């Protein structure tokens, strides 16, 4: 009597046959599709006949130092060391990079063609590192794509660091200073004629495209009542390490109280000349002659002025000035943490005491105060618990009930009582 096939042999055979069929089906599908660049199946299924073979001695070129607005070009050599024609097609380039010199889209075997990349260094923009790329599609099965890269550093007539000055979380009586460096790239260090903070801000001037009457126009705007500014030459040790830098100035901005609570936006201006640069566009200097009134470096000066006490935490909604808890279940309750911050000369007097909570079931615990950093700000943790089993209530700020609150006696002479609104509802 003949026996049926052994189940294990059948299983093994089926697995091998099935995998082979599946794999072959998938590969054949891939090969029948148009060329999908980058698919491993294409690489592993190279045509057996003659193919083009692209050889490029370089795909990256470093321009080194360029002046902002200066145009640079570089030619990349493409050689076909294969046996059939090499076809090249332009892909995309970065926004300001263009490919030219690709008139010869076909390179016969053994021949070389050049692909030229042109780039204008950050026109209308600041200085800084740049890197731009261009993609070339080829019919070389081993190099279906070639990305050409140009890179370097562009220099403007002047480069600020940082690009603006921001004072965060100031007090109305704060007297604080901040500095910014302006690095120049002329033939000699700058001579500063005027440095000030103007009352209103304009567009930060493009140093290359500065209008001839820019300095005169800026001078018509009144000085800021909130800031003063000074300038001193930058120590050579600071700028000498920066390639191409020939000088600079250290600008210091100091606040002038009383400062209004809210945001302030003004503009730091430094008018300067660079000796021997008037009309000079020699190599190493600027491509644009010095304007009649001199160069004007403009930096935004912004500040945010707040009161002596602040509340912070994940649940704090600063747009609406309340603690956002939302609807919670009485079965589970909730707990979260806030911070009270105290700033200004009376910060050490702040010793909060809870005098009221709504809903009454809300427990508030004041933690130990501690200093932040150098002690200008004092941080006081506040732990808030609405325990499980709290009675139902609605303090969502709707018609059904006003917002809840935590009322503190602070100890601060100017703000003796602080009410922190709480948006919460307790349901079953």
């Amino acid at each position, binding site marked *: 009597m003949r026996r*049926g096939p*052994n189940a294990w042999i*059948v*299983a093994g055979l*089926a*697995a*091998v046959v*099935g*995998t082979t*069929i*599946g*794999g072959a*089906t*998938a*590969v054949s599908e*891939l090969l029948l599709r148009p060329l*999908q*660049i*980058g*698919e*491993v*199946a294409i*690489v592993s299924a190279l045509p057996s006949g003659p193919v083009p073979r692209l050889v490029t001695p370089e795909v990256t070129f470093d321009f080194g130092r360029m002046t902002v607005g200066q145009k640079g070009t570089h030619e990349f050599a493409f050689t076909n060391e294969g046996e059939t024609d090499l076809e090249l097609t332009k*892909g995309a380039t*970065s926004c*300001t990079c263009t490919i030219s010199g690709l008139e010869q889209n076909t390179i016969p075997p053994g021949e070389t063609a050049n692909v030229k990349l042109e780039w204008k260094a950050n026109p*209308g923009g600041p200085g800084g590192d*740049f*890197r731009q790329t261009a*993609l070339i599609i080829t019919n070389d099965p*081993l190099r*279906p*794509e070639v990305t050409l890269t140009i890179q370097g550093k562009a220099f403007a007539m002047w480069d600020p660091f940082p690009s603006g000055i*921001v004072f*965060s*979380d100031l007090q109305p009586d704060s007297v*604080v200073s901040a500095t910014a460096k302006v690095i120049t790239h002329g033939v000699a260090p700058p001579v500063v004629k005027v440095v000030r903070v103007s009352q*209103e*801000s*304009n*567009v*930060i001037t*493009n140093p290359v*495209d500065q*209008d*001839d009457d820019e300095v005169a126009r800026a001078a*018509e705007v009144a000085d800021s009542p909130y800031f003063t500014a000074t300038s001193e030459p930058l120590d050579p040790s600071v700028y000498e390490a920066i390639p191409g830098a020939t000088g600079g100035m250290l600008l210091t901005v100091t606040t002038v109280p009383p400062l209004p609570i809210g*945001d302030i*936006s003004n503009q730091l201006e430094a008018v300067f000349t660079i000796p021997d640069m008037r009309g000079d566009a020699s190599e190493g200097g600027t491509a644009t002659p010095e304007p009649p009134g001199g160069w004007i470096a403009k930096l*935004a000066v912004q500040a945010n002025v707040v009161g002596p006490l602040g509340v*912070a*935490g994940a649940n*704090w*909604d*600063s747009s609406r000035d309340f603690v956002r808890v939302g609807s919670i279940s009485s079965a589970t309750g909730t707990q979260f943490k806030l911070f009270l911050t105290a700033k200004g000369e009376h910060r050490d007097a702040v010793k909060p005491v809870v005098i009221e909570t709504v809903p009454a079931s809300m427990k508030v615990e004041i933690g130990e105060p*501690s200093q*932040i*950093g150098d002690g200008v*700000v004092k*941080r006081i943790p506040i732990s808030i618990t609405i325990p499980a089993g709290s009675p139902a209530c609605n303090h969502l700020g709707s018609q059904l009930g006003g917002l809840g609150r935590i009322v503190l006696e602070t100890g601060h002479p100017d703000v003796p009582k602080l009410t922190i609104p709480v948006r919460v509802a307790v349901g079953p």
Partner: protein
Amino acid sequence: MLKMMPPKTFGMRQRPAGLLLACILSWAVFNGMNAAAEALPDRGPDTSDSVAQAFQQKNGSIFVGWPKPQAVVILTGELNGYVEPCGCAGKENQKGGLSRRQNLLRAITNAGWPLVSVDLGNQVRRFGRQAEVKFQSVADGLRDMGYSAVGFGPDDLRLPAEELIAAVAAVGDRETPFVSANVGLLGLDAGITPRFQIVEAGGLTLGITSVLGDQEAKTIRNDSLEMVSAAEALADIAPQMTAANCDHQILLAFTSPAESRRLAEAFPQFDIVVTAGGGDEPPMIPPSLTDETGVLVELGHKGMYAVAVAFFTDAEAAASSALQPVQKSSSGRPFLTQRIPLDARWGESDEMIQLLANYQLQLETLGLKGLRLGTSRHPSGRTFAGSESCADCHSAAYDVWKDSAHASALVTLEEAVPNRDHDPECLSCHVVGWVPQKFEPYEGGFLSRAETPHLAHQGCENCHGPAAAHAAVEAGDVIASEIEQDRLRSELTLDIATPEGRKRAVNNCLECHDLDNSPSFDFDEYWPAVAHPSESR
């Protein structure tokens, strides 16, 4: 003699083997096809072949020949406020945006690659209420995308501390992804953000921390932050990270590439060091750190690219398949890197589009007043009249304008999805009387359709200057001397035939047609579309 035989059938004993054969054959065919044609995460979930192929040929293919990695780390950063491509130059021509980013992460997850997402930081680039709202939205988006670690950039840290804390602090049981070794919101010991994170993916344990460079820290004046030097902070936490027995350690260093490299040399435990600065785009292959191991990753600017670092168990498999060099970690584990352009091949993510719509809604709710926008006097000191005021006398020029795209500029914002007609960063180039690069109105500039309908769209006065006084004199509403009348006329003249006039005109155009929004702008090419006669009626 030929004997007729009944068709052969499997008996009771044979039937299970037949069924087994059929089942296993089907399973094997299915798996065989999957193994050979397993989809690479090279496009968004709903992207068609034609779109994917078009953008592969435009901006390059990705993950060419990669086998499935043990784990992949997706690195992003320096978003600098560019939450989405604005679309001014055609969205398909622009890269970046949170929506495409989410679809990239989704594609990787769908491909079954164990994923860790990490962001260097600097979500915003400006200061003020809009930047605060934007930071909160981006932070929400990063959480929704499942980021494991997010650092801080200097522009993030210039925001008021209470805003930062509201955006980044842990909410309930949901831990914060934000991390910093050397910056503490309300103090390093406040515990609002951890100093490092430990995450696991594909059986690998990764330790991740971030630092703000010392030079960058000097530019921040915020007493509610505690900052220590990057090197001091890393020396403090390095032993703790080492004690966590991580397979790899990642440092997010918001500082220059040179300074990042110095930190990497001082703390060689980090395999992946992500740096700020560098060129506009990341390099094709990021350089090694030291001794040909590790990697220094640049991300480019404005969130246009992501960079993948993928670890493999088998160096030979990776080397034989991928068309790029295999790099090695300090422990010898092979990895490949990939620069990923966030272009239209990724499609759009509904969740991020909704997040951006909510952001726009917040801007609308706050209004220009709630956004605390400052106003500045126009440099000329004059005020605006609106384009319709020009029509009577300059009818030929007005007709050209009326037929141009400039005359419907605000409509494009109103009809965009989501609408952006309450976003100062968009409005500034779509209405009359704003400072384009500061995103603020001049005194007397456009406020809203309801309040200032005559100043809608990109009108005449954005190039020629405010014309209220000129229009009033010409209309006879104000009596002026002939000399004064001529002066007002001449002040609005923009003669591109002269070098000075042309320079003024080109500079004016560049205020809006800048590299971000109009990268291919060329005055001579664009001018014919709006060229208009100079003479008046």
